[in-house]
C-alpha cells in the first residue's frame, strides 16, 4: 500500500531523512518511532506530498507521490502535528470544507461529515468554532478531517499528543478499529503506544532507519542475555554466592542497590534457561522462593539501545538485524 525506497531529504547541508526504505501492507498499522528531530515528520510530509524528497521514491496506493500527486493525495488522509483548523469556522463548516477540497461527492458530503463526527466523538461540538476547542477536541477534529474522504491510507503525526488519558485510550481504540479498512502510518515518541496499537515498528534516528520489526520481536530479540528477578526469604552474601554458583549464571546483583533485601537480579549466559536450576538450588538449600520472573527489556530500553550511538551490546543487536525491506 505504501512503498518508500531510498528516501532522502536534505535541507541545505542538513540531512533530515537519509536513505529511508520501508513498506506497509494493506490494512496494517505501522508505528514510526524516534526521538524528536529524527525525521518522522519530514518522512510523513514527503509521503503526503507536502514536500518533495531530494532523492528516492515513494508510492501511496500505487501512485507515485511526486509524479501523480493529486491521485496519491486523493487516497491519503493526513493529520499533521498541529491539527490544521481554521479558527473562524465551526467544526461542521470546517469538515464540510475539507470534504469539498478532498473531492467527496456533493451528495455524500453531509452524511460523511456526520459519520466522521460521530466516529471521532466530536458531534457534540459541531456548531462550536474550531478556535474555541480544547486541545483534545482539536486533535480529534484533526483526525475527523483526515478520515473525511475515507482514504485508503492514513498518515497520523502524533495522533494522541495533547489528549488526556481517557481520550488517548479512546483514540488508540479508534485507530485500531480503522486498521483493516485503512492502512495506517502513525508517528509517536510514546513507546507504549506503539506496543498497543502497531503491528510493526520502524525505529528511526537521525534520519536513518535503525530497526523494522513487530513490537514483540523487537523486545524479545534485543534481549540477548536474559535477566531474571529472584526474591528469596533469606538474605546475605551467602545467598549471593550460592546463586552465583548455579550453572549458567553470568552475574548476580542485589535488585535494590542500597541494601540487600533478598531480591536479586540474575543474568544468565546467552540463550540459556536457568530458571529450573535456580529454583532447585534455592529450594534444596531450604530457602523460601517468593518470586521468580524474567525481566523483559521494555520497549523503552530497546528504543534507547537502538537509538543510542554507542550501543554497547552491538552483539545483542545483531540478532535483531532488521528486516530492511528489499531495495
Amino acid at each position, binding site marked *: 500500500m505504501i512503498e518508500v525506497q531510498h528516501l532522502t531529504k536534505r535541507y541545505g547541508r542538513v540531512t533530515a531523512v537519509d536513505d529511508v526504505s520501508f513498506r506497509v501492507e494493506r490494512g496494517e498499522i505501522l508505528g514510526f518511532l524516534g526521538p524528536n528531530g529524527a525525521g518522522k515528520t*519530514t518522512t510523513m510530509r514527503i509521503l503526503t506530498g507536502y514536500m518533495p524528497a531530494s532523492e528516492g521514491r515513494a508510492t501511496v496506493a500505487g501512485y507515485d507521490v511526486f509524479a501523480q500527486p493529486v491521485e496519491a493525495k486523493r487516497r491519503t488522509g493526513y493529520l499533521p502535528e498541529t491539527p490544521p483548523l481554521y479558527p473562524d469556522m465551526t467544526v461542521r463548516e470546517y469538515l464540510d470544507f475539507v470534504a469539498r477540497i*478532498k473531492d467527496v461527492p456533493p451528495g455524500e458530503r453531509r452524511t460523511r461529515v456526520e459519520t466522521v463526527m460521530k466516529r471521532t466523538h466530536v458531534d457534540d461540538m459541531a456548531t462550536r468554532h474550531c478556535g474555541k476547542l480544547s486541545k483534545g477536541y482539536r486533535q480529534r477534529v484533526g483526525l475527523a478531517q483526515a478520515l473525511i474522504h475515507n482514504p485508503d491510507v492514513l498518515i497520523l503525526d502524533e495522533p494522541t499528543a495533547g489528549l488526556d488519558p481517557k481520550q488517548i485510550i479512546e483514540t488508540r481504540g479508534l485507530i485500531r478499529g480503522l486498521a483493516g479498512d485503512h492502512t495506517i502510518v502513525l508517528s509517536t515518541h510514546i513507546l507504549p503506544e506503539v506496543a498497543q496499537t502497531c503491528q510493526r515498528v520502524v525505529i528511526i534516528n537521525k534520519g536513518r532507519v535503525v530497526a523494522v520489526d513487530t513490537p514483540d520481536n523487537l523486545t524479545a530479540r534485543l534481549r540477548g542475555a536474559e535477566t531474571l528477578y529472584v526474591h528469596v526469604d533469606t538474605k546475605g552474601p551467602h545467598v549471593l554466592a550460592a546463586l552465583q554458583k548455579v550453572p549458567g549464571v553470568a552475574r548476580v546483583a542485589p535488585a535494590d542497590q542500597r541494601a540487600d533485601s533478598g531480591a536479586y537480579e540474575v543474568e544468565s549466559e546467552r540463550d540459556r534457561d536457568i530458571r529450573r536450576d535456580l529454583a532447585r538450588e534455592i529450594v534444596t538449600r531450604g530457602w523460601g522462593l517468593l518470586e521468580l520472573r524474567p525481566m523483559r527489556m521494555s520497549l523503552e530500553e530497546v528504543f534507547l539501545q537502538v537509538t543510542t550511538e554507542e550501543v554497547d551490546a552491538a552483539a545483542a543487536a545483531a540478532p535483531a538485524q532488521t528486516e530492511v525491506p528489499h531495495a
Partner: protein
Amino acid sequence: MRNVLAIAEKELRSYFASPMAYVIIGFFLLPFGVFFYLYLSMFVRNSMQMAQFGGAQNVNQQVIRYVLQNASVIILFIMPMITMRTYAEEKRSGTIELLLTSPVTDVEIILGKFFGALGLYCAMLLVTLLYMGILFRYGNPEWRPLVAAYLGLLLMGASFISIGLLISSTTNNQIVAGVVTFVVFLLFWIVGWFADTAGPTLGPITSFLSITEHFDDFSKGVIDTKHVIYYLSLITFGLFLTAKSVDTERWRG
C-alpha cells in the same frame, strides 16, 4: 474549478466571520464618504454659480471622476490589509498543510485565494454604489462612464491583490507581509509622480509603471485596451510569480 470555488468561498467566509471584513469596508467607506461629500458640495456650489451665467456642469467629470480617483488611493492603503493574511496566516497556523496535502493543485489554491480577496473587494465596491445611487436619484449622470470607471477599479484592485498575494506567499508573518505590500503599493503609486521631472526617456516609463496612473482614463469613462492589457498582464504576472513562490517554498520545506 470546483476546488477554486470551495477555497474562494472559504476565504470569503473567513473575512466575514471575523471583524476584518467589516473593519476594512468601514475604513474604506469613511474616507470615501468624506471625499464624496466634499466633491459633491463643491459641485453644488459651482453649479449654482455657473447657473447664473448660463453654463452647465458635468457630474461625471466633476464628481464621480475625482471621487473614484481618490478612492483608488484609499484602495491602495486598504488592500495590504486584505492580502497580507492570505498565505502568511495559513503558513503560520499550519493550515497550509491541509491545502497542500489535499488533491488540489497550487494553481487552484492561488486562484481560490485570489477570487476570495476579489470577492471582498467587490463587496467594498458594491457598497459605494449607494453613493452613486444618490447622484442618480437627484441628478442625471451618464451611466456608461461610471461602468468604465468601476471596471477600472476592479482591474486595478485585482492587480493589487495579485501582487499582495505574491508578497504574502513569501513570508509566514502577516505584519511583514502587510508592511512590505504597503510599501510596494506606495512605490507603484508615487513612481508616477516622477513622470514630469524624470526627463523624456524615463518620464513615460515611470508613468507607465504607476498602477494608479492607468486608472486615470477609466475614471474619465474611457476604456483603453492599453490600460486593460497593463492590468491583465500585471494580474497574470503576479499570480504566476505566486505559483513559483509557493513551489519554491515547497522545495525548501
